[in-house]
């Protein structure tokens, strides 16, 4: 073939390369493609037929594949009369369809019905089946065999067309993958040998990419020449099948099924995707009630609330409920932290098989009234804006089968097991009645059978009394002198409960409530600064100071934070808890009642009101007689002489309470924050953009390669006409700018190319090429970058 010299304005001429091919024997190609087709067809059909247990023997399948793969390879490898050979098998199928129409239809319907019934069995759905007349076993077998025959023929034809004619490994993968996808959609796994075969086939397609992919012959791109490796297809290349098999065996050894356990993180991600991903973004993990690892006191400053809903709760408890999300046992001077490893281990050892989080419920279960259904209530929490990893749960929660989604943290609180996305909703069961309201009135009769529980309780009590009364060294003296200066000693008060009340009153009298206390200065201890210098703060300040004062007085105490749910209304409806419902309190430990919450923030009384704590409306003045504060009638703190819970004893006014979805304060609009799905939408959007970009790029490459092919056509007249069409397209884009319209000479040449029987010379053809290049160069220089992008990728002008 005469090569076209690349004429340039210099002395060196290097022509475009021409492909010289050595003659490769037909059988070399045949024995390369035939085993591949056999493997691909067998593996795909084995996967399909064995997954649905269809009544076709594997040996028959293999023989069908053997026949049709050989036939397809022979036909597609013919160089002459290709169209005829390509249509041979489809025509054979058509002929067979006409002769055995009813049997083929029966076989198809029977197979489809088997697939549908497998789907129904797997999924529990009811799916419509195809109408099939009643057939006996012989007829079923014959119809199935015919259908198998036809399916094998179609598959082999498709695989041969993909591998031999189109040189596309991807198409071969797709055709074989369809038959695997049909069962896998409903998680119906074919047997291992079929899966192994298809994996070997796909692995071989990948390894043989240099041979199997790429358009045949010599392709010229803008900067280089590509020659496909189709002529490297020879039988000696097939040991890759063995290599892939060995690789699969090696892979199975390095990650064997016996030792495999699915990582937790994958389940978490999967759960998050299915149930709505709640990403733990900073705005959901910082702030009161949102921490679940530690509370940084140094970062606390002024508080601002937006009224955005954090939680939605549905409860049947007719009283307020402390929903604890976190508790801190170790005070560092700048933060509340969780226990150390040693303390944790000691607590576990003391508790044995018991969980401290269920201690209150375990104790309550000893009471006779605990057997009544009326003392049980359910609480559903839907997390819409708080930290998704936090689990906000009541103190008297029972062990109600939430172990699949919640896990205890130390001996303090719960968190979700899904470490990435948390849980958006959970329902718990807890115990409550008016009689149970005062833990100190619980008379727990321990039975002999409960001796294990009793010993755990005693051991744990000893641990708590030792550990949760500890203070940092630098705080011991100042706090003890604070207490002694004010007569806040156990010896001066009748009981620990009275001491607790006195301490709280003392703190209230010294410090004022405000949402703008400022930041604790660097180098200062948070509590000392609050108690002695600043003397103003909000719930976190009061809770921290009170917890440490309790400890200094010898009462085991911890810092706790979460949300306070208001009492349920007459109908159990959803209640919105906005961000200002987040609260911090203290929990103290007594052996007969476990950990109980103590309200230490001035002005908050969950016993008298049915509304959630509204920090925004609280007057900063310490005077209880502020006319704006409807609760000012009862200036005493919420810790009554007889109780340590925020709800005092017995007779309670009938509860009213707020029911959702009305806003909790007049004039305030509740902002419902639904579980944010925006991360998922964002991901889908970005993924869509990526796919679209990929499609645009592929489309452009495809169009450009087709154009290049047309330009380098052996028929110079055709090539000239392709150039001409492209030049006109470019001229139409910029009709009034750019190089002048085509000269008459070029027009004449175009007419000659179109109508004359003479072929243009290479020099004449190069005129078109030069003109096209001039147009493209002009466009590239002239148009704006955005327009250039549109020309390249949308219109594919160049």
């Amino acid at each position, binding site marked *: 073939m005469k090569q076209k010299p690349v004429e340039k304005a210099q002395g060196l*001429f290097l022509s475009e390369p021409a492909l010289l091919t050595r003659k490769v024997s037909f059988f070399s190609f045949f024995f390369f493609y035939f085993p591949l087709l056999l493997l691909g067809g067998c593996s795909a059909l084995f996967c399909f037929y064995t997954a649905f247990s269809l009544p076709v023997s594997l040996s028959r399948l293999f023989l069908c594949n053997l026949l049709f793969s050989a036939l397809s390879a022979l036909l597609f490898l013919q160089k002459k009369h290709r169209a005829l050979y390509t249509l041979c098998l489809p025509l054979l199928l058509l002929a067979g369809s006409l002769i055995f129409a009813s049997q083929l239809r029966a076989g198809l319907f029977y197979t489809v019905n088997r697939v549908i019934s497998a789907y129904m069995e797997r999924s529990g759905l009811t799916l419509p089946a195809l109408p099939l007349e009643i057939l006996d076993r012989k007829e079923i077998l014959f119809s199935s065999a015919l259908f198998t025959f036809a399916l094998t023929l179609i598959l082999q034809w498709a695989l041969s067309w993909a591998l031999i004619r189109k040189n596309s490994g991807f198409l071969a993968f797709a055709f074989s993958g369809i038959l695997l996808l049909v069962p896998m959609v409903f998680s119906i796994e074919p047997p291992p040998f079929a899966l192994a075969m298809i994996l070997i086939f796909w692995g071989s397609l990948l390894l043989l990419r240099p041979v199997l992919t790429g358009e045949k012959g010599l392709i010229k791109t803008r900067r280089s020449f590509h020659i496909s490796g189709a002529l490297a297809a020879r039988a000696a290349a097939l040991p*890759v099948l063995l290599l892939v098999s060995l690789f699969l065996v090696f892979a199975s050894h390095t990650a064997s099924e016996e030792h495999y356990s699915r990582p937790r993180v994958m389940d978490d991600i999967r759960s998050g995707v299915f149930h709505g991903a709640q990403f733990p973004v900073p705005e959901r993990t910082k702030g009161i009630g949102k921490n679940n690892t530690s509370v940084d006191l140094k970062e606390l400053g002024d508080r601002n609330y937006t009224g955005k809903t954090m939680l939605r709760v549905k409860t049947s408890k007719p009283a307020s409920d402390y929903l604890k999300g976190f508790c801190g046992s170790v005070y560092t001077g700048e933060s509340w932290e969780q226990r150390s490893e040693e303390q944790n281990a000691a607590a576990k050892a003391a508790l044995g098989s018991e969980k401290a989080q269920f201690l209150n419920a375990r104790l309550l279960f000893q009471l006779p009234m605990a057997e009544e259904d009326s003392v049980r209530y359910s609480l559903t929490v839907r997390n819409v804006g708080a930290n998704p990893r936090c689990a906000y749960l009541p103190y008297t929660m029972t062990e109600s089968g939430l172990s699949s989604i919640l896990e205890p943290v130390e001996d303090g609180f719960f968190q979700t097991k899904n470490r990435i996305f948390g849980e958006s909703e959970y329902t718990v069961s807890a115990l409550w009645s008016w009689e149970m309201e005062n833990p100190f009135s619980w008379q727990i009769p321990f039975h002999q059978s409960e001796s294990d529980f009793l010993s755990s309780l005693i051991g744990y009590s000893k641990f708590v009394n030792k550990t949760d009364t500890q203070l940092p060294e630098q705080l011991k003296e100042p706090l003890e002198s604070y207490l002694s200066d004010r007569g806040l000693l156990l010896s001066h008060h009748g009981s620990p409960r009275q001491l607790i009340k006195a301490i709280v009153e003392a703190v209230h009298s010294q410090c004022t409530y405000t949402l703008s206390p400022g930041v604790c200065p660097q180098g200062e201890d948070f509590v000392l600064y609050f108690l002695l210098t600043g003397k103003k703060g909000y719930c976190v300040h009061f809770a921290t100071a009170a917890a440490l004062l309790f400890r200094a007085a010898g009462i085991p105490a911890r810092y706790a934070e979460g949300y306070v749910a208001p009492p349920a209304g007459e109908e159990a409806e959803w209640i919105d808890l906005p961000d200002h419902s987040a609260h911090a309190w203290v929990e103290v430990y007594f052996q007969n009642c476990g950990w109980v919450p103590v309200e230490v923030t001035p002005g908050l009384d969950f016993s008298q009101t049915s509304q959630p704590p509204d920090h925004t409306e609280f007057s900063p003045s310490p005077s209880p007689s502020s006319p704006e504060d409807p609760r000012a009638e009862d200036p005493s703190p919420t810790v009554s002489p007889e109780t340590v819970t925020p709800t005092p004893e017995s007779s309670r006014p009938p509860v009213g309470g707020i029911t959702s979805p009305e806003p909790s304060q007049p004039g305030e609009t509740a902002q419902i924050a639904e579980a944010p799905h925006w991360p998922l939408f964002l991901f889908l959007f970005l993924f869509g953009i990526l796919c679209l970009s990929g499609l645009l790029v592929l489309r452009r490459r495809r169009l450009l390669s087709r154009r290049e092919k047309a330009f380098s056509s052996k028929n110079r007249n055709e090539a000239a006409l392709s150039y001409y069409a492209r030049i006109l397209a470019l001229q139409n884009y910029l009709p009034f700018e750019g190089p002048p319209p085509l000269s008459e000479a070029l027009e004449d040449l175009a007419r000659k190319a179109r109508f004359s029987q003479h072929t243009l010379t290479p020099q004449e053809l190069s005129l078109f090429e030069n003109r096209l290049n001039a147009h493209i160069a002009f466009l590239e220089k002239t148009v704006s970058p955005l327009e250039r992008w549109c020309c390249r990728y949308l219109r594919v002008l160049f």
Partner: protein
Amino acid sequence: MAKNRLEYGVILLFSATFYLFFLGYLSFYVFWAVVLFPLFSLICSLPCMLCAKVSLQLEKSAVRKGEETTLKLTASLPVFLPGGRVRLRVSVQNLLTGEKEEETCFLTSGAAEALSHTLSSRYCGKLLCRVEEFRVYDYLGLFSFRRRLRSEAAAFCFPRAVPASLTLLPNPAADPPDGHYSPDTPGDDPSELFGIREYREGDRLSRIHWKLSEKAGTLLYKEMSLPLPEEVLLLLDLSGDPERQDCLMDALASLLSSLSKEGRPCRIWYREKQGAVREKPVSKGSLSPLWKDLLSTEFFSQGPLFSGDISFTPGTSHALLLSCQNPASSLGTLRQLLPEARLAALTALPSVQESQESVFFLSRDNLGKVLKALTL
């Protein structure tokens, strides 16, 4: 390779998605296999990547200007496994004119294919074909590395000589240098004694060395030297565009051919790109080695040709400067360096001008005409 990596990324993404949503061991196995597969592919392809060979062959080693030769490129594999893709960047360079053409090809090693190019040059020079880059890829096309490869082929494109005639006018100002006589052949120049030998019958009696003969007791004959004809110094200044270089090379070829026929000795003086000076006598035998040297040379083009410490063989009587530039300043410098020599210049400028005294303007059209009437 970016495309292959993107495709692999997509496969990995799909297998990860499969692993995420499908709970069984199969999904993990597939994901694990996809993660390991590139490494496996690299290991399997290594023998082919390391053993792949490229060969470059030129059909002819010497061509005329405009004559075509075939350049063949093959990527072969001595092992039976299928080869991966290879990328070749081939360059063809005319070392004299500096022109270069490059081409990049992607092949599959081991395929029964070769690439064939047609190569030709309008200008003379050494055409050096080289594989500048040989990059081998693994089967998946994810990894690659460069292989060092020395594969080159060269062909010489010789200049075209036209009939020329150089007339050297006598130059009495130049003394014949020492050794201007033939060192191995006696002659008849009485001014220089070649040697003494025994008298042979037929020798001239006037040349018998009577004094020595008396002493030696036998007749001794005085042989005289053979004076060599005047040597021409040809100075080359080929710092110009390929067209002019080629024109002057044609002129040089024509002159050397003519001088060689006449048996006139000459020397060639030129300066290489780095500044090194070369002065080579033109031997009587084949000019081919000289031409191979000249055609492979990159000539000096940074500044005046005669800058620095330049000296010539003393006693040069005739010197001809072949220059691509305007020779006026070069001739001036040359007159100072060779004050006694007869100087002239042949220059190839884009536009033909009228020949001036001792400066002859060359072009393609008047090459033969000028060289036939050249006088120095």
